[in-house]
């Protein structure tokens, strides 16, 4: 029995509206409701980036939302999956080119699943999340392998507050 394969059964979602029209957001809310009930898949809407696996982003990224989006994304621990919900989150949609819009979510953070529609239907969101589960599992494996590789290369005793870097940077001109 491979315990690791059960990991994908617990995706906790985090929802952020980066400047959309609320349409997709209320459909995400509808997903939680009894008719669609995504808790069947073990999903919880945590509202807390530190404990989430899946980031559901809706809406085109406005200039003010951009930093918050990246900040929240950075606070999520790997493995993490980003789903852009709806046309405007995926590409900017109808808002593309407006002066305060920066375009799709993938301009700033890597997006794994694009969900189409304006607005997306709950079924589509659920479908997107289920696709994300497979990606999540793949990413988990990748992460574990990379961690294994890294642990051997890193020497002890560096500064703690940074990610360890295997090799020192040598000055080009000496």
């Amino acid at each position: 029995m491979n315990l690791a394969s059960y990991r994908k059964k617990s995706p906790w979602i985090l929802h952020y509206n980066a400047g959309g029209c609320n349409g997709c957001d209320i459909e995400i809310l509808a997903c939680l409701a009894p008719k669609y009930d995504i808790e069947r898949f073990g999903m919880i809407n945590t509202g807390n980036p530190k404990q989430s696996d899946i980031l559901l982003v809706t809406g085109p990224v406005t200039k003010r939302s951009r930093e918050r989006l990246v900040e929240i994304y950075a606070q999520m621990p790997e493995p993490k999956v980003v789903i852009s919900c709806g046309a405007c989150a995926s590409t900017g949609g109808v808002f593309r080119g407006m002066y305060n819009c920066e375009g799709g979510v993938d301009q700033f953070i890597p997006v794994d699943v694009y969900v189409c529609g304006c607005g997306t239907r709950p079924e589509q969101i659920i479908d997107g999340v289920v696709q994300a589960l497979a990606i999540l599992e793949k990413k988990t494996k990748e992460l574990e392998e990379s961690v294994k590789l890294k642990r051997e290369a890193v020497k002890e005793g560096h500064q703690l507050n940074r990610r360890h870097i295997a090799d020192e940077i040598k000055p080009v001109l000496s």
Partner: protein
Amino acid sequence: MYFFITGLFLLPLIVSGLLLVLPGKISKRLVILTSFLLSALALYIFINTTAPLYFSVPGYVNEVVAGADILLLVYFGWVALRKKSGLVGILTVLQLAGLLYLLKTLPASHSMQFMVDKLSVFMFLLINVISGIIAVFSLRYIEEEACSAFRKKYFLSILFWFIGVMNLVVSSDNLEYFFLFFELTTLASFLLIGFRKDAVSVKNALTALWMNQVGGLAILAAIFFIAYNGYGEATFSNLLAHTAEKGILLPLALIAVAAISKGAQLPFSKWLLGAMVAPTPVSALLHSSTMVKIAPFIILRLSPALKDTPVAMVLIGLTGFVFIAAAVGALAQDNFKRILAHSTIALLALMIMMGAMGTPVTIVASLVLILFHGISKCMLFLNAGVLERVFHLKETSDMDRLGESGPFTSLVITLGFMSLLLPPFGAFIGKWLSIETLGALATEKKILGALVMVAIAGGGAVLSLLYFKVMGGLVSRSGEQDRVRFEKTGPIYSATIYILLGLVLAGMIGLPLLLTHYFAPVAAETGRQAVPVVTEGWNLYIASMRLPILPLLVAFFLLPVTVITALFIRFRKVDRAREYMCGEKLNYSFSSFYFSTDRATPYFYAAGVLFLASLILVALI
């Protein structure tokens, strides 16, 4: 042995005199040396005392005592005149009249003036070791005080004076002597509280004076009633010899009133809170080893006589009420020292209650509380001094992020508060024993027991909330350094606090041993009944109370070790993340809950007065 005991009495007094005249550098060494010497003496006496020692002093001392009494009262009268305090004046006149009347009517044959039994020795150890540490601490503290060089010497001198008088208080048997020493501690505290000489200090010093004078007056009345009821000499041992007689109830009640006034229980709680204006070592001294500890000491001394009397019942009721009232009062405080003061009052109430119950286990509980509360409170107060001097902090609400600038201080304060609250610390064991014995009281004494139980349960929870509230700001920090760097507070500050921290931890580890070899014998002699302490496997039985050692041992790793480790531990190979701020990157201000008890305070005082009146009434009826 007499020699050493006399040394314990006289050495601090002599040093006190010397400190006034010696130059600074020598007096510094003298203080440190004397502190060591006193501790060593107390330890030696403790080890070598097996049976109670009764001893009398030459006859002329009686006259000296009487003269000193009158002189002291005259001084109080002068203070009253100069500060225009009517209350102090009236009380002084009353005391003077009572004293003169007693001197005139009482037979002058004082046979045994002093009694040094295990309880006294127990107190010696507490007084001399803890006060010694405080004296050393105040060397540095008072140096930074803005006052003249003479007043600095004067301050140290009174500290030692205080220690000497305290040693005398806990070993005097004769109530007249006891009265003198009692009033002398009052004097010492009056001088120390008024040390800074500003308006608030003077006012609070006067409050302390008159409140303690009420206690003195009560003692005089007790002496009178002992003679009036025909019990002969007014000594503690004489009182204890007449246990279970109705006539001694009134003197007992009166002495209990004295204890309540010294112990700052409710109607008298104001003076201890006001004492906060004094330099911090004074607070440490008053709270941990001297002054307020007279209250549980008196009750413990009288506990065989008090036990199961109506007076004891009222006393238990009063202290139960004080416990919860002080705890609630503490919640409303923001000043660090005032919070400590309230928690002292609450715990003193518990000590007095345990003493008044007088069963073997409760006496052990009372003793455990006296000792460990002394150590923990001393540690906390000295840290308050450090906070004041090094970090310039007085209010808890300003102590936000202390964990970053002063990791050691914040660690010690956290441990200090935890030691008053949680297993496996000594003070907790005392509290635990109290709750368990109160269960028995609730079975026997029905409603009273149930009410007291409620007060203790509620008060305990309120205190825990209070401690959490204070610790909240202390431990908060935004990140971590690769290596912990303790702040430098100077050798004297850090040495004294290290010693106290060591004592807290050592007391906790050695608790099973201490219970068997230290507290049990003292309690046996104090309560006049055997205190069986048996170790069976992993359990320690005190009378019928079972103290499982294994959970406490594990709790040791769970609490102090964890809290200390938490400061030092560094997880490598774990990435750091920012705190969650809803995606924003702004800075926000923090605070804890605050509470206000302004409306309740008058009712607390009123209830205290009612209890006090019923204390006397019960004894009369």
